[in-house]
């Protein structure tokens, strides 16, 4: 069943310049799609359009249907119902995504209460449970902490916990590990993979890093200058890219990787 159907999406700036042009793709329930592209390819704008979160002044045409709701042109009230329930998002920079003045526990408890209607002691218990599920050590302490009091990796786990608390049908992750150290990134990718699989959630994973996308998705859509360049299974795109742009991208990634192999050959 199609969960997200993006058809002919075009996003323009206030002066009419197209930043995303005639983009179409679908994500079925439980499916994982990676959006990959370099800076300015329009991948992040696409995710914002899916959530009805485009910046002021930008306009979108075409169609974005998320779990049966047409997002483009929807009223704020309809969007509020969709966000969280049908799709939740984890952004790149957890320091700006979390409210700096609110304890971490409350930021996870908010969406949890909205979905489950829990209150008081039971909400507290569910919040700690949600923090434990993203493998945060000592959830009691983390829940009482403010975002600046925990590490970057821990903040991103909190953001993931808040997104998962809504049990969305679709988890959107926009460069969720780019700001993290490589060993923290590896843990975070493993965590997303497991949690999403357990919940049979669909994922729209945005990244500039092919190797990262390949770790968590089944299919890849390559974007350049706001257009889709190529789409296919992870294996097809990475092993046998059809378009020159994709070939370049893969070759660049492989060049760097091969240095690691050459250098580290015993």
């Amino acid at each position, binding site marked *: 069943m199609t969960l997200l159907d993006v058809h002919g999406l075009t996003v323009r700036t206030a002066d009419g310049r197209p930043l995303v042009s005639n983009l179409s793709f679908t994500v079925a329930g439980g499916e994982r799609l990676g959006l990959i592209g370099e800076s300015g390819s329009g991948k992040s704008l696409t995710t914002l359009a899916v959530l009805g979160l485009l910046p002021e002044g930008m306009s979108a045409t075409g169609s974005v249907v998320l779990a049966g709701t047409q997002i483009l042109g929807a009223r704020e009230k309809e969007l509020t119902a969709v966000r969280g329930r049908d799709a939740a998002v984890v952004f790149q920079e957890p320091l700006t995504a979390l409210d700096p003045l609110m304890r971490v526990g409350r930021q996870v408890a908010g969406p949890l209460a909205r979905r489950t209607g829990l209150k008081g002691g039971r909400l507290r218990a569910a919040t700690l449970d949600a923090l434990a599920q993203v493998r945060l050590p000592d959830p009691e302490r983390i829940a009482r902490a403010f975002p600046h009091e925990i590490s970057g990796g821990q903040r991103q786990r909190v953001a993931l916990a808040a997104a998962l608390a809504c049990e969305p049908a679709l988890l959107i992750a926009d460069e969720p590990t780019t700001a993290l150290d*490589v060993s923290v990134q*590896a843990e975070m990718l493993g965590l997303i993979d497991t949690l999403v699989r357990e919940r049979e959630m669909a994922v729209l994973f945005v990244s500039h890093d092919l190797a*990262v996308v390949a770790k968590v998705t089944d299919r890849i859509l390559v974007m350049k200058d706001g257009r889709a360049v190529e789409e296919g299974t992870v294996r097809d795109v990475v092993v046998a890219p059809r378009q020159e742009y994709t070939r370049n991208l893969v070759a*660049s990634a492989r060049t760097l990787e091969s240095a*690691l192999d050459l250098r580290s050959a015993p």
Partner: protein
Amino acid sequence: MTPVLELADVAARYRGARADVVSDVSLAVRPGESLALVGESGAGKTTLLRLLLGLARPTAGTVRFDGVPLALRDRQQMRRFRRSVQCVFQDPYSSLDPRRRVGPIVAEPLRSLGLDTRAGAAPKVAAALEAVGLPADAAERYPHEFSGGQRQRIAIARATVCEPRVLLADEPVSALDVTTRVKVVDLLAELKRERGLTLVMVSHDLSVVASLCERTAVLEQGRVVEQGDTARVLGAPAHAYTRRLIDSVPRLPT
């Protein structure tokens, strides 16, 4: 051979802090042996680079330049030092003055080191811009007219215009897209090869390190846990932390 730069049992501490950010660090940079400082956020990589650049003073130990302790008050020595050791930073968007044209930006080291007059600098600036693969008319333009990769080339032109022996680079390619990243790595490799430039590079990206540096030092929480030939450190890591770093690098499916 005398190391160009050397840290001997160095420690550093932020003002008012109770613990050292780096401690007991001994490293030597020999001519022609580029060195990578590898580690995660907070490991002290940038602090070491600041010590090597003479931008911070160690709270213990010595920084040596050509075998002589670096004396930040010795103007003559500092002048020789600045001429020999230049740097490139991570973010090409914030390291170039947006209100100056590229020409004067690149000529800055020549001017501040008193090496050239404005007119005398022009051919050197043109040569430096050409060496990093930028068009000759780049000198007349402003930084905002260039892409991220091109701006990093401008920063590299500025750092190499006075023909230094050592280039200190703090995550020089991590803000760049992968195709651009490969090109800037190639450029740095070319400068190493053709000018005999020695790199000291801070990076968290092991594949970039493997592409450019003969030697690698791994830092964890302010201490060097392992150092040696890059092939040995990455190929047969002796320390658990190094192994964890290597295993964490996401790889493309084959």
